[in-house]
């Protein structure tokens, strides 16, 4: 009983994070009540009391969820029902109902979380539940033995589960998205670039996506993962321009040079953006490239998804339309004299744009500009304050100031958000990009070259681009730190290695288990030559029968494995005797066999006697010699009838 209550407590524990605290408290109260009643049975409520409690439960459920449909409400319903059922255990049947209900509650956990840790936890708790069933059915319940048995049962069922997982047609309830009323905010880039938004992200170690390259990795300086484009500004924040009507002619895009092929796995996001390496050339169905060269997915961004992409770092976007030019020259107002002066000084008007950009970057580099994660707040006129007074800022400050100055110099320019860099996971050989890698850079339109990327941050803090952000240190100290991207094995501490290993396991779990959907399954099955349901049925039947057969064979012949090698040799000997017509019954001892064999084949008496003597010594006597087994094997092998 205690055992069962304990396992039920374990199974509902992770739900504490999902279901309303009031309902969880109600459940815990019922569980505690039941627990106390183990020692004080008279405290158990009678039929009427249970009925009242049920009414209370229904009331609470309705007040918290207003329905019984949907993921949260359904889960709460099961949990409350489980708690109520606990109070009316009259016989073994009720225990069964409770255990089965607990299994269902365990399953609902996967509606919230699909991580490998949760899977292991649920598997563990299922083991405890199975043990509960075992103790219910054994005369002398022993906890340890029951746990052992349930572990054995789970291990035996794993191959079958694996076969069914791989072969059984996947039911596509698209990751329960229709049940997904999850509204908890995910952090990430948004449609507006607020002054502090990227700095906020830079403290988040949350994974955004993982990339596995088919070939070589691009050099760190080319790892720009393109996100939203910010073109409209009011001087403080920058907003993305309207995308509608911008499905502009993609044939203008000209790619030259090598392409990188890679698989990109997006973690759940708020926006349906896919951060491709600049500039994506090929992308699968379900993705489209909008006029801002950003990839948009039509899947639910709240799901983890995997994409096959190709990108080329060398590209030419061609010309721009008048609207686009106007949009990218937009200024929040008339620039101040200081700014105009600066632009003039940097030979902005009417010098060539390239020259001006070069001078501007030089200006950032030579003047006393700093890169900092926590700049002083610049509430009004942030760009001017930054340019002329503070001179310390984060990538978004540099990018916006850069774009602003370019626009003053009448060069179409815009800010691009996204991620830069990423950390290489040595174990899995993939790149992990986190929120802390969020970055903002600039794009300027140059005649004949199209949109060209400029990263003013690289001018101030080239190590940001070359080495990437050291997330851990940054979070620990709140200041910007950079780490070398290629760490050699010696400097990698075991802790880091352990984390990389874990990330790699997690990546593969996501990739092969969670993302194994209908499409992937079809592709996989086709590679096995299964293209219709009849064939699939045969495969299923054969695999299940095969696994079941092996298990049955092992279960029904338990003592075959732990057999004495001497006995095996002796069996061969008996088989040889049987071939010669000397009958050996199961109930015959070795001496009986030897006497009979000697009687029938006096010519072999000596060999039979020697084999029997050594076998008896090996199997029944205490004075066995080390060489006996070898001798026995040799004798049996050379025994001819």
């Amino acid at each position, binding site marked *: 009983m205690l055992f069962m209550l304990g396992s039920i407590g374990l199974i509902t524990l992770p739900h504490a994070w999902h279901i309303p605290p009031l309902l969880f408290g109600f459940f815990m109260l019922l569980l505690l009540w039941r627990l106390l009643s183990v020692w004080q049975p008279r405290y158990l409520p009678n039929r009427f009391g249970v009925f009242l409690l049920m009414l209370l439960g229904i009331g609470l459920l309705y007040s918290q969820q207003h329905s019984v449909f949907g993921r949260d409400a359904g889960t709460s319903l099961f949990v409350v029902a489980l708690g109520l059922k606990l109070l009316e255990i009259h016989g073994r049947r009720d225990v069964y109902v409770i255990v089965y209900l607990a299994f269902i509650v365990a399953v609902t956990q996967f509606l919230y979380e699909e991580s490998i840790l949760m899977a292991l936890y649920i598997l563990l708790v299922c083991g405890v539940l199975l043990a509960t069933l075992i103790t219910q059915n054994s005369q002398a319940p022993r906890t340890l033995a029951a746990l052992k048995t349930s572990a054995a049962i789970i291990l035996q069922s794993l191959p079958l589960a694996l076969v069914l997982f791989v072969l059984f047609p996947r039911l596509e309830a698209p990751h329960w998205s229709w049940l997904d009323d999850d509204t908890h905010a995910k952090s990430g880039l948004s449609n507006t670039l607020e002054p502090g938004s990227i700095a906020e992200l830079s403290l988040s170690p949350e994974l955004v996506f993982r990339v596995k390259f088919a070939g070589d990795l691009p050099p760190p300086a080319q790892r720009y993962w393109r996100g939203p484009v910010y073109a409209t500004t009011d001087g403080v924040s920058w907003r993305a321009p309207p995308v509608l009507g911008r499905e502009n002619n993609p044939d203008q895009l000209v790619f030259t040079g090598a392409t990188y092929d890679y698989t990109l796995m997006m973690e759940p996001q708020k926006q349906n953006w896919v951060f491709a390496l600049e500039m994506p050339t090929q992308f699968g169905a379900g993705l489209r490239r909008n006029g801002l060269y950003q990839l948009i997915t039509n899947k639910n961004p709240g799901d983890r998804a995997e994409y096959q992409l190709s990108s080329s770092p060398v590209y030419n976007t061609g010309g721009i339309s008048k609207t686009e030019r106007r949009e990218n020259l937009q200024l929040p107002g008339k620039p101040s004299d200081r700014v105009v002066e600066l632009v003039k000084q940097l030979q902005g008007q009417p010098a060539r744009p390239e020259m001006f950009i070069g001078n501007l970057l030089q200006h950032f580099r030579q003047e006393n500009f700093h890169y900092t994660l926590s700049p002083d707040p610049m509430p009004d006129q942030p760009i001017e304050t930054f340019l002329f007074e503070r001179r310390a800022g984060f990538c978004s400050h540099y990018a916006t100031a850069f774009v602003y100055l370019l626009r003053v110099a009448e060069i179409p320019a815009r800010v691009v958000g996204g991620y830069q860099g990423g950390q290489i996971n040595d174990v899995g050989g993939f790149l992990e990009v986190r929120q802390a890698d969020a970055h903002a850079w600039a794009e300027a339109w140059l005649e004949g070259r199209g949109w060209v990327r400029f990263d003013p941050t690289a001018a101030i803090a080239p190590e940001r681009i070359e080495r990437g952000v050291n997330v851990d240190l940054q979070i620990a100290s709140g200041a910007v730190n950079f780490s070398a991207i290629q760490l050699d094995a010696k400097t990698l501490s075991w802790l880091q290695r352990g984390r990389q290993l874990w990330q790699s396991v997690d990546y593969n779990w996501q990739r092969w288990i969670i993302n194994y959907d209908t499409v992937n399954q079809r592709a996989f099955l086709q590679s096995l030559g299964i293209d219709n349901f009849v064939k699939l049925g045969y495969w299923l039947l054969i695999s299940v029968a095969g696994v079941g057969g092996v298990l049955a064979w092992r279960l029904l012949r338990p003592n075959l494995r732990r057999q004495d090698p001497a006995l095996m040799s002796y069996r061969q000997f008996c088989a040889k005797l049987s071939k010669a017509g000397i009958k050996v019954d199961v109930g015959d001892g070795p001496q009986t066999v030897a006497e009979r064999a000697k009687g029938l084949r006096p010519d072999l008496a000596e060999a039979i006697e020697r084999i029997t003597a050594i076998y008896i010594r090996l199997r*029944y006597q205490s004075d066995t010699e080390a060489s006996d087994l070898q001798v026995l094997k040799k004798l049996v092998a050379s025994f001819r009838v």
Partner: protein
Amino acid sequence: MDLALDRLLAAANQVILGKQQQIRLAVCCLLARGHLLIEDIPGVGKTTLSHTLARLFGLEYQRIQFTSDILPADIVGSSVFDAHQQLFSFHPGPIFKQMILADEINRATPKAQSALLEAMEERQVTVEGRTYPLPQPFFVIATQNPAHQIGTFPLPESQVDRFLMRIELGYPSRQAERELLSGQPRHVLIDELPVALLPEQLADLQQAADQVYVSPALLDYLQAILAFSRQSTDFASGLSPRAGLGLLAAAKAWALIDKRQAVLPEDLQAVLPAVAGHRLNVGANDSAAIVAPILKHVPVL
């Protein structure tokens, strides 16, 4: 010491003709510290065998002839009023001997039977609140007639279980019978028998039997036999753990008589009818037939 055992067996075979196997079993039973029940029709030599064994083992022995009017006091003894000393004093009965030959035990009433059987199990006697220990070693060799004979009180299962072995003698073979008919009277031969084993030698032999090696493989076989007897539908009830212990002790003694230091499956098979027969089926008297399914179906290998 082995020689002494050989001499003992040879001498016994001189008296009881053509029953080597039964004599060996009887000796084996005593080496395994068990009580022996000999069952057969009258006149085939039950009493002769028990007397022979008693003589050869050199133990002080007492024969008790069980009849339908025998009382417990006739077996264990009683308190008698001593007129000189004006008090009761205990007069030990015939049971206070190292070896008891209980003849025709199933002729006595259950009351008298249980007096003997209690003494067998506890190796002590309680009379009027006082406990008297029995001598060491203490053996009972009981004989009984088959249950279907007139005027018998069959021993219940629980009491039959106290005997380590039950053996049957059966009619002698033609040649053995010829020798018997032409030879000397048996009681003369018994009187002439020398003592073959000294008491310390018997103790040594019993200890040696205890130390015979039993391998895990043999225990597997023994357990398989026990499990089979419990699962099989051939038997009303399976072999008890006490029966298992008895089987092992008897098999060890059998191996010792065979001059081996380890028990073989054949030893178990040899003692199985005698040890298990009367426990699996009290009524029947063909032990070999009773245990035949076990020997046939329980795999040795």
